[in-house]
């Protein structure tokens, strides 16, 4: 194994705090009474329900279909009856249309068995299975996976990267998946290679997960097969190592141009947990109905790595994990750097939720912002070489439309700038405002 790879410019080192859950094996959470399936789980238009109230559904049955634009279908995570076609709390949109399923505790859980040898299928058949199983990027982006597997004809792809960096603090869901399901991740990688029609796959893992690196390396070695060139590389521990452009640069040295897709430099990136979901979709014909999430933070009594059904409400997770502590101050869906704070426990997990964090006052930072002192720390921290301080000053001065010159459209809102800012300026918020108003 070579030295730890990394991207050269920017990045920050927030405390990792993975010790709360990294040694805990994935637990299966018992089926909750109700599941709420948000129709817009992916990037693109929300799905349209194919069921109506009081319909009985079996586990894995189709409940919503794509009717326009880009997207993937939605399936019933468990057997039960449709209780309502209404709306649910949503971390970003406040409320979003959803399907509520009253689960049937009597129904036997579905058994997902190996269907057939995927090696006999054509790439088109495999791609259709990925789409039909409702697979999207479950590391957080939510981009439909089948779309990423069909790169534009004018940019041929030669390398598949599997993202096991998991650079956000606290989260250990990918870590545990790689450790406990290494063979499945590797098999998923082979399926992706077959769909893409290429042979090179590199799995990047931050070196704060040596056990996962070992497990994945052994799984790769055990699955050696002609036509598949798969290897594991260790990455330096640095936030945003797991961001697509930084990961590609760290591993291949290639730079994805501004506003372009990774396929522009011949690369496709998939998260390791997404890869495992692809394997389940193809090998077991199992749709994406459950996922591993990390429940962590000092505000929850029993931190855990849980396998939960999509649509499980945070309130049920709290109950299963022994309740919250009295000094709980903030609940975050996703990581502490890029996740979304939510105002209610009555909010369902989606396919893209990688963690639910229960943070106490001393874990978060609620200090008020002050004026920008132009220290330039944000320039040093930004992995994209942007000028967050100027974007903030322009937005405050009422000129968000003039911020394109500082690279606002290249910003992927990693929060490194706001993390280091000594004046505690909400630079990500300024950027989001600027993006709405700036002229391209």
């Amino acid at each position, binding site marked *: 194994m070579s030295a730890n790879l990394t991207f050269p*410019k920017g990045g920050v080192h*927030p*405390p990792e705090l993975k010790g709360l859950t990294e040694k805990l094996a994935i637990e299966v959470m018992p089926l909750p009474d109700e599941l709420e399936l948000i129709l817009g789980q992916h990037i693109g238009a929300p799905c349209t329900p194919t069921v109506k109230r009081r319909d009985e559904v079996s586990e894995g049955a189709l409940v919503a279909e794509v009717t326009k634009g880009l997207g993937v279908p939605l399936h019933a995570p468990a057997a039960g009856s449709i209780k309502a076609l209404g709306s649910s709390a949503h971390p970003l949109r406040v409320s979003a249309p959803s399907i509520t399923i009253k689960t049937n505790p009597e129904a036997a859980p579905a058994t997902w068995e190996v269907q057939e040898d995927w090696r006999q299928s054509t790439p088109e058949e495999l791609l259709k299975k990925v789409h039909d199983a409702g697979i999207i990027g479950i590391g957080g982006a939510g981009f439909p996976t089948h779309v990423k597997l069909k790169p534009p004809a004018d940019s041929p792809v030669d390398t598949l990267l599997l993202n096991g960096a998991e650079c956000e*603090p606290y989260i250990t869901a990918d870590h545990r998946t790689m450790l406990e399901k290494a063979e499945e991740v590797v098999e998923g990688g082979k399926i992706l290679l077959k769909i893409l029609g290429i042979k090179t796959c590199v799995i990047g893992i931050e070196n704060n997960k040596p056990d996962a690196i070992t497990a994945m390396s052994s799984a790769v070695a055990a699955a050696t097969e002609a036509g598949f060139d798969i290897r594991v590389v260790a990455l330096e521990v640095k936030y945003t190592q797991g961001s697509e452009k930084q990961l590609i640069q760290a591993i291949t040295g290639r730079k*994805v*141009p*501004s506003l*372009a897709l990774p396929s*522009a430099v011949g690369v496709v990136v998939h998260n390791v947990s997404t890869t495992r979901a692809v394997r389940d979709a193809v090998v077991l014909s199992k749709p994406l109905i459950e996922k591993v999430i990390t429940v962590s933070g000092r505000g929850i009594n029993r931190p855990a790595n849980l396998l939960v059904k999509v649509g499980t409400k945070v309130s049920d997770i709290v109950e299963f994990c022994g309740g919250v502590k009295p000094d*709980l*101050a*903030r609940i*975050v869906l*996703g990581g*502490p*750097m*890029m*996740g*979304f*704070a939510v*105002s*209610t426990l009555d909010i369902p997990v989606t396919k893209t939720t990688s963690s639910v*964090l229960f943070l106490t006052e001393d*874990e*978060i*930072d*609620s*200090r008020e912002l*002050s*004026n*920008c*002192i*132009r*220290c*330039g*720390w944000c*320039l040093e921290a*930004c*992995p*994209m*070489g*942007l*000028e967050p*301080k100027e974007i903030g000053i322009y937005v405050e001065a009422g000129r968000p439309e003039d911020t394109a010159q500082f*690279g606002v459209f*290249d910003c992927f*809102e990693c*929060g490194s700038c*706001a*993390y*280091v*800012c*000594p*004046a*505690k300026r*909400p630079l*990500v*918020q300024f950027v*989001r405002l600027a993006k709405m108003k700036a002229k*391209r």
Partner: protein
Amino acid sequence: MWNVSVSPHVRSNESVDKIMWTVVACLVPPLLLSVFVFGVQVLLITAVSVISCMAVEAISQKLLGREVTVKDGSAALTGMLMAFVIPPGVSFLIPILGAVMAIYIGKHLMGGLGYNIFNPALLGRAFLLATFPVAMTSAWLPPLTDGAIFTYLSSGVDAISTATPLAVLKEQGMLAFREAFGSPAEVYPSFFLGWRPGCIGETSGLLIVLGGIFLMYKRYITWHIPVSMLGTMAVLTWIFGGDTLFSGDPLLAVLTGGALLGAFYMATDYVTSPSTRTAQLVYGIGIGALTVLIRIKGGYPEGVCYAILLMNPLSSVLDGWFKPKRFAPPAGGEK
């Protein structure tokens, strides 16, 4: 309902207050040394300067209807730095007037913390130099050698004022300088340690450099501005600073006239200096070159103050010229 806000939800424990008060703390050792060199009145002058700056900040913010942020330490730092660049024998009125100029006009009328174009402490000094030219250029005190730090308090300072090394060098030449301060072998150590006439805080090169190194260790400042400024001064002084070309004394140039204080504490002021590394190097070179130009051709012996004030407004221009390198431009070049 829970506390919601935009990501990131975790942030580093650095803060403006922490930075400002750390820099203030780094200035305490040179101040204490100054008490031993010039007597306890420098402590009083510094206290008056710091308290006036903080009071003017609070009053200005009240007057302008802004939030009072005097606890963030930025006004205290300005007060400390302004005291460091005035002579030890001035009256207490001088730092009070300087504080009004530095904080009210130089900072809050410009928009408050972060929006001032000029370094407030140096603006205060420039104002005092123009309004009290005699006191500001003659109230120097010879160093105390007997540890009698209350001497000047009881006797008054008018009768015993002396001249600074650079003034002697500029006005009377090297021969007079040697006579007053000794041979180079004697001068360098005493100047580096601080036993020579000068402004309150600029005498001890050693303690100022140590403070600067600590700030670099804390990553509050980087080497770019101090090294480029002092390096430029040394090279240009060596070339042009002597009677013939290549005969100037570069070491003397950086040890005198507040060059070290200016390089580590004034030119590195976040608000009034550029943010990108390349811009900082150009900025430092500019300050070094202007300082030498003023010392050799100008009317003032020291030059650092005006060189920094002249470069301050160019900071944002330099930042515009030397932008950070983007990750990758769009395919087909920038629009």
